[in-house]
């Protein structure tokens, strides 16, 4: 251990060799207890896909059971609110499954009784056109769970004749640009697409050296590898909590081919959105 100039303690590797090499090796060998702890942790962090109504888990991947031509995924509360108010208010959407997962980001240590917003990704399809699949994911999917999520949702051999659209948000301070950040007009939309996505995007493409993180990145990488046309619409905003203006920034996506046919009533959508805002407002006195 070493102390830095600012008084923080950092772990520094020790160059002095230890005298008792054997003792160290004993410590490094895994005990049965370690293995059990690791097994329990893996079980806790498993991503489970099941039908809420019947409480039965899906034996095959979601897209194998419900093949689709359009798959729209909303990750994060603003993207979820956008789909809820603009897309899901028209037509009848039926829940076809949900993915339940726990990680350190969940606000509870109880892995059994998890609240929907904490730990669920819900999947819907349009009753009148079951080839349109929608995913509302407001929980955080950790790095070690992303592969499981992709495997359970997309499967190991996905069809290529579908189009994937992902919507998500990121804080504007993550956006790297040569311009001064005070001149950035946030929220703004950027797009990143796979090679097989041939349509023009609804906004400008994400410039280098910006990168995409977490589940949206995992989905895009997966689609790129499997040659599935996919596009990610990333909204950079300075308000990460549920916000009317941030959700409004997704509106250009309504003109894309995936969403065009699905949106019917925009004024009603704005009303639904306002209602969502008021019901989800968290009371806090820290900032005024």
């Amino acid at each position, binding site marked *: 251990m070493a102390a830095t100039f*600012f008084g923080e303690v950092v772990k520094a590797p020790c160059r002095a060799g230890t005298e008792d090499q054997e003792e160290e090796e004993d410590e490094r060998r895994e005990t049965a207890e370690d293995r059990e702890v690791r097994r329990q942790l893996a079980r806790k962090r498993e991503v489970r896909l099941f039908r809420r109504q019947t409480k039965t888990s899906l034996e095959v991947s979601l897209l194998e059971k419900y093949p689709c031509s359009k798959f729209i995924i909303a990750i994060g509360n603003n993207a979820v609110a956008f789909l809820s108010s603009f897309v899901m208010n028209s037509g009848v959407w039926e829940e076809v499954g949900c993915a339940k997962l726990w990680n350190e980001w969940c606000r509870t240590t109880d892995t059994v009784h998890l609240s929907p917003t904490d730990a669920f990704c819900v999947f819907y399809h349009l009753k009148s056109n079951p080839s349109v699949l929608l995913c509302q994911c407001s929980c955080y999917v950790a790095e070690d769970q992303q592969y499981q999520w992709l495997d359970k949702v997309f499967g190991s051999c996905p069809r290529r004749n579908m189009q994937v659209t992902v919507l998500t948000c990121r804080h504007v301070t993550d956006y790297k640009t040569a311009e001064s950040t005070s001149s950035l007009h946030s929220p703004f939309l950027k797009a990143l697409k796979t090679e097989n996505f041939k349509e023009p995007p609804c906004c400008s493409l994400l410039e280098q050296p910006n990168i995409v993180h977490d589940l949206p990145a995992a989905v895009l990488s997966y689609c790129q590898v499997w040659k599935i046309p996919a596009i990610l619409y990333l909204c950079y905003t300075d308000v990460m909590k549920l916000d009317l203006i941030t959700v409004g920034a997704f509106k250009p996506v309504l003109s894309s081919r995936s969403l065009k046919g699905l949106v019917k009533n925009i004024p009603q959508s704005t009303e639904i959105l306002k209602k969502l805002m008021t019901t989800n407002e968290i009371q806090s006195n*820290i*900032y*005024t």
Partner: protein
Amino acid sequence: MASRYDRAITVFSPDGHLFQVEYAQEAVKKGSTAVGIRGTDIVVLGVEKKSVAKLQDERTVRKICALDDHVCMAFAGLTADARVVINRARVECQSHKLTVEDPVTVEYITRFIATLKQKYTQSNGRRPFGISALIVGFDDDGIPRLYQTDPSGTYHAWKANAIGRSAKTVREFLEKNYTEDAIANDNEAIKLAIRALLEVVQSGGKNVELAIIRRNQPLKMFSAKEIELQVAEIEKEKEEAEKKKSKKTT
């Protein structure tokens, strides 16, 4: 690079940033919007009212505070920091009055607040104040003033400005709409402030709070009813303007 230089306030990064001060500006953006307008004979402060919990006493959740009879300020950012700054400013106002037998000028008290904020950006073991303030008032010479301070300790005079969440949108609206006609009389200046706020306030007039100071008069806080009346007038004017537009096109 940022993570190595943002822990201590007194450390510059190689490219000249004081990251803690810049992060404090982000804290300001977490507060709700406040707008200030300097008219010819009036100064107006409008704020987006924070939603108050059911059991909370509304009077204790205030974004607009009087510093003296002729000066008031609105802030955006950390509530507790604002309370400390406001208390110090109020004490300074009275101390000045007792020492020099004259009330503070708006510029004096703004400079005092800005100096206080700057001290906290150059002191080890402390963090900057996470608030920006809009300070308005009239001096003895009868000229209206509007100043804005930020966490770095800078202050500038403005004709109209906004701070807090969506401040940029409101400032752009003001840049387009702040004209000599718009502030021709007191009522027009008040309406401009409300219109600017309505651009970004999520639930309309009932979430707006307004305060004005007229020359040689104390601070006046608008009641909810008065604000409603103004909002109704603004909506009527909007409708009439749209009707005229549609008539022109047909």
